[in-house]
């Protein structure tokens, strides 16, 4: 072994653990405002992810322990779980997680090799294949008369015998769904915003959830686990694209603040688009990557077939990463025009 002979004591495990820790405020707010059902989803996704990871590592002939210890599978599981409707059936959660870990991660070569964000691949597969089940969102407790207990949530998720009326009383369209449906019914944005689900900026409860993810993201930035470029450019992309549309026709396009404070944006900006493996690596590349993802999110939300576009936007930008990286190589120390190699 040659120099250097010392390292600072950071590790992949530590990085991933911080990401998980930074998700905790979001999860806490989730439980507080939407009920404890998300805990069931998170646990199921975690168990599935770890099992799938262990099996795949074994199948690929890798030592299980160091790779299970790196916590990256749990990060994927949590990000997927937090993107899924909180009362999604168990098989939906398992399918999505399996797809994320087995196909998007391991079939591409495992940790560090996946060109797409695994959690978003899992999400995309589910929303394309099971659009109906992907709408079982528990509404904010503030608007539900008889919220579900932990046991009841588990029962719903595991397909237990829950009266349809009980379920209908707690599930609700998300603000983005409501906006989309309303616009399709030729209502104006202002009319739609009078619905009870909408709060100050985003949806009731949802805006607080977005705030909690933002807080966690800022912690990650303060710890230099993530760089500032991706989240800032992502949020700027959302704000500018939505603001541009809203400025021209406030009746047909949601306000930029509304778009920013959908929880998927904050989760996407700070936790998903910042995934180093599938994201751009150069400083300028990160800006382009984040901005592109923000822009595409608004385009998909506005003209696409699905209410939210964060997942697809990030996946599309994942595709562009090799190109972005190649054309945004920063100048190196002492580099002159003469020594600069043309991007080949």
């Amino acid at each position, binding site marked *: *072994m*040659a*120099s*250097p*002979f*010392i*390292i*600072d004591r*950071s*590790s*992949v495990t*530590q*990085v991933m653990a911080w990401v998980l820790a930074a998700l905790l405020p979001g999860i806490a707010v989730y439980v507080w405002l939407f009920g404890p059902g998300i805990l069931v989803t998170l646990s199921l996704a975690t168990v599935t992810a770890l099992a799938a990871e262990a099996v795949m590592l074994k199948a690929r*002939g*890798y*030592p*299980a*322990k*160091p*790779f299970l210890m*790196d916590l*990256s599978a749990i990060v994927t599981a949590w990000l997927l779980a937090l993107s899924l409707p909180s009362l999604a059936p168990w098989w939906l959660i398992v399918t999505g997680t399996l797809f994320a870990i087995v196909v998007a991660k391991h079939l591409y070569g*495992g*940790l*560090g*090799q996946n060109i797409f964000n695994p959690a978003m691949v899992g999400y995309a597969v589910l929303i394309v294949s099971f659009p109906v089940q992907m709408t079982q969102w528990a509404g904010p407790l503030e608007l539900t008369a008889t919220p579900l207990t932990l046991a009841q949530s588990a029962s719903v998720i595991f397909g237990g015998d829950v009266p349809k009326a009980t379920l209908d009383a707690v599930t609700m369209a998300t603000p983005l769904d409501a906006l989309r449906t309303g616009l399709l019914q030729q209502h104006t944005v202002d009319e739609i915003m009078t619905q009870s689900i909408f709060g100050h900026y985003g949806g009731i409860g949802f805006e607080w959830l977005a705030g909690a993810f933002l807080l966690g993201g800022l912690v990650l930035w303060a710890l*230099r686990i993530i*760089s500032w470029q991706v989240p800032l450019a992502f949020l700027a992309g959302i704000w500018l694209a939505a603001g541009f549309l809203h400025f021209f026709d406030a009746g047909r396009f949601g306000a930029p603040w509304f778009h920013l404070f959908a929880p998927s944006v904050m989760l996407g900006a700070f936790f998903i688009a910042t995934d*180093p*493996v599938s*994201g751009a*690596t*150069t400083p300028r590349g990160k800006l382009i990557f984040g901005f592109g993802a923000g822009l595409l999110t608004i385009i998909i939300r506005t003209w696409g077939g699905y209410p939210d576009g964060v997942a697809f936007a990030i996946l599309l930008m994942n595709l562009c990463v090799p190109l972005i*990286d190649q054309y945004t*190589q*920063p*100048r*190196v*120390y*002492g*580099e*002159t025009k003469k*020594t600069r*190699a043309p991007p*080949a």
Partner: protein
Amino acid sequence: MSRELFKFKGGVHPPEHKAESNTRPVHAAPLPKKLVIPLRQHIGNPAKPVVEVGDRVLKGQLIGAADGYISAAVHASSSGIVSAIGPAVVPHVSGLPDECITLSTDGLDEWIVHAPLDYRAMEPSDLRMRLRDLGIAGLGGAVFPSAVKLDPGATHSCPTLILNGGECEPWITCDDVLMRTRADDILQGVAVMRHLLGSTEILIGIEDNKPEAIAAMQAAAQKMDYAIEVVAVPAIYPGGGAKQLIKTLTGREVPSGKLSTDIGIQVFNVGTAYALARAVHHGEPLISRLVTVTGHVLRPQNMEVLIGTPMHTLITLAGDRDGTTGVLMGGPMMGMPMPDLDVPVVKATNCILVKSRDLFPPLPAALPCIRCTRCADACPAELQPQELFRFAKTGDFGRAQEYHLFDCIECGCCSYVCPSHIPLVDFYRYAKSEIWAREKEKRAADLARERHEFRQFRLEREKKEKAEKLAAKAQAKRAELAAAPATEGPAQTDADAKKALIAAALARAQAKKAEVAPKNVDHLPPEKQREIEEIEARRAKIRELARQPLETDEKKS
């Protein structure tokens, strides 16, 4: 200190560990019974031995003469008898032996006659040759012959002279201690440098974690009759790297692939300035230096050590302890592991760092790269180490070069911060050595092809010339025959001539074929041969590493 400082990108803050060794007074290490003096201690041609086994030599006597312009002489560090001239283990990662002169010391430590140089009265070129013959080379680590660096060239001048007292590597304190205790001498050396380079601006960069050294150097600088600016620079590794120090002090960058002199700046280590002062003012060759002996020893300290002293004697002197896991020459970031503790202290030896499990825990097994770009943030050369790693690992050396592999200074910052604990620098060394090897092969192949093509051309030409000659002869004969009474048909003569021509050509071709094509690796001088072997050994080692960083891990679990 009003000087505006600039920040270079990247860098890391490893624990400094300077206090262990920089508080004890400096003692001269006792004279060992045996001194092993390698002939190659510097960059460039190794010195040529000028003594024979059995000769008695005096302290400071020339025993290996500089060979060519980029070379430096080596001298007897003490008086005694030359007991061997030949390969011995030297401080080198490969563990391969190199040509050395071994002296059995007689304990008299008897100096050869030596006198100061009147450097101001000397021709600059003569002075530089004297310095080369006094063995002066850079003591900061690279050991480049100083005489070459002190030559500003015919048209260049070197307006800025920077003295490097950065000493950014953890654990090492020899420059710190040297500046504290011998500041005046260092500045005497600076005067010689200034004289040779014609510098108008003199800067001394010292990291701000060495306040005593800064104070001592400032006090000494005040006594000089021209301006010398002692500048405290922020302590950050590798702030003492020449390119980084230049950036910090002047805001300028050495263009990629060029030398600092191209932008009018020359950098010397403080130790080199001291050695230069001893050479000029005392006529002493470079036969000793300050060495930090630290780490897992009882009394970490700096010692004045004769070149050629076996390292184990110094470790014993500093108090060796149980649980030693290895010894490095240099610091933990860029130092190299010693294959054997019999290896001698050489001009490049700034530190002997004794490792233990506690101080240097084994590095954890490497995980795959997650492209987090912490390495890019830490890289002082502003490279994209994660990309270089990918290219090196997949053998895409062309792209590695496009991504400026050769601007890598192997400082180790990337490996230091990598959360996946990938030995990144090993991969860059591997890629560099592969590229060198391939270039060498290509050059050899090109040469062979050129030779072959020329041979083909020559054969064609000779054939043509012969044919022309024969044709001319035949013509003459025909004319002769035509003049004489015709007994044979001219057509037959023609055919005969052709036949003879073909036979001759065939015979020639046969003879040429029998000759063996010259091989490029035959008849190489032994040092070239050795260099090739070294490179091959290193490549094999690194290739082993690159093959599968997870292999060891798999075995464990």
